[in-house]
């Protein structure tokens, strides 16, 4: 619970968000309808923060010691690196933004990533969204698989990605941008957008390279709504590097090698009938993470819309824990219980 408190305080400091208890305001759905006072105290996130943080804490904290995984500081782009076999990564990825014609939103995804083998990783995402002066809702889940087809590392390493999404139209976790997704998608109320069901298949070709401490990753995204909708395309490109390449001899919290920084670019590439960059959103921004000594990795990235079709600004941040050999730990607990 201590973690929860600090987390909320950080949000309050950074975004001037009011955390006074109470139900979600429903007074105005669009920025134009809101009074100045209502706009200044934007989101009551109490409901929205509590559920993912509670699940996150309940799942992660009982494991005690965690391993400090060397995560890339990317939010949209996947690198070719797979989860270590038997390890479970629990992460909470958040994004907030404010469309010019709408209210501030807060999208979140609670992620569970498990390394089945050295060449196969599975992930489950639970998504939710909160909109200022609107509501907080669960928007659906995503199941994904990543496969590394080779036995060795190469100059360029391909990973094949297959995902099934069962979400609704209110989802704003922004795990990727495809087709003609744009600022207009962020204006309507949750009660309207949640009626749209999205059962989608998403395929990605992930390419990644490591060279002299740099990681360069490129993703090509192909998404198809299983109803009668055309294939949509998108991309994500990112590069990052630890601030220091060699490790320190003594354990430390703020050594340069604990930080990684880079840049991330992503956007839509239209759909089958209108491919290209016309009427697509594009985002670019720096990104950074820090591996804390207690095992969590904290990441953040301000992103900027590169055209009028995009949201002007997005702010992404996340926290992840990696639990080593999760089923081995459970087996140990079980044997311990038997021994008693």
């Amino acid at each position: 619970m201590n973690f929860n408190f600090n987390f909320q305080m950080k949000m309050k400091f950074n975004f001037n968000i009011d955390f006074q208890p109470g139900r979600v305001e429903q007074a105005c759905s669009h920025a134009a309808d809101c009074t100045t006072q209502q706009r200044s105290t934007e989101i009551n996130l109490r409901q929205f923060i509590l559920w993912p943080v509670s699940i996150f804490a309940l799942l992660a904290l009982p494991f005690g010691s965690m391993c400090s995984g060397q995560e890339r500081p990317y939010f949209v782009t996947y690198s070719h690196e797979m989860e270590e076999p038997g390890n479970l990564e629990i992460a909470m990825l958040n994004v907030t933004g404010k469309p010019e014609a709408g209210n501030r939103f807060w999208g979140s995804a609670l992620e569970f990533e498990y390394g089945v083998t050295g060449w196969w990783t599975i992930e489950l995402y639970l998504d939710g969204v909160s909109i200022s002066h609107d509501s907080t809702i669960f928007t659906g889940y995503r199941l994904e698989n990543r496969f590394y087809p080779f036995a060795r590392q190469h100059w360029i390493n391909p990973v094949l990605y297959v995902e099934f999404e069962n979400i609704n139209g209110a989802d704003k976790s922004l795990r990727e941008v495809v087709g003609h997704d744009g600022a207009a998608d962020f204006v309507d109320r949750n009660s309207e957008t949640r009626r749209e069901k999205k059962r989608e298949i998403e395929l990605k070709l992930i390419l990644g390279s490591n060279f002299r401490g740099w990681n360069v990753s490129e993703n090509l995204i192909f998404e198809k709504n299983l109803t009668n909708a055309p294939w949509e395309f998108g991309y994500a490109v990112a590069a990052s590097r630890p601030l220091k390449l060699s490790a320190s001899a003594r354990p430390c919290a703020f050594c340069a090698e604990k930080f990684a920084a880079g840049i991330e670019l992503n956007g839509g590439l239209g759909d089958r009938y209108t491919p290209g960059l016309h009427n697509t959103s594009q985002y670019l921004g720096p990104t950074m993470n820090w591996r804390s000594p207690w095992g969590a990795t904290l990441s953040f990235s301000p992103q900027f819309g590169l055209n009028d079709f995009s949201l002007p600004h997005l702010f992404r941040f996340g926290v992840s824990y990696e639990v080593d050999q999760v089923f081995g730990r459970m087996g140990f607990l079980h044997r311990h219980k038997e021994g008693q």
Partner: protein
Amino acid sequence: MKGRLPAMVFGSISVLILMGVAGGEWLSKVPSSDHQKINPVRNEPDAVAAGETLYRDHCSTCHGKNVEGAKKRPPLVSSRVQQEATEGDLHWLLVNGNPRRGMPSWSRLPDPQLWQLVAYLKSLAPRKE
């Protein structure tokens, strides 16, 4: 000769399986250019200590806090690691992993850190087998 052929095939397969079970087949896959690589941080005074820190962070859950191995994960104090394998062999294994046998690639770690890990592993005294 015909009678010996099945026995030879059986024998060859058995040797391959035993090599696989022993986990040493990766050594034969290391390209000669990697095999001959020399650890660039071997003379740095902090390399072993830094490697030990990295080992605790990334490897100890599978290979044991005292490098003794656990369950199906092999110990890293053995004549193979400390004597048969060169520094270049160990570096190659860390970069590429052995994904079919559960050893992940550690290419996510920068190269100097992989060499620090190699320095730590090479600093350990092999146990009698």
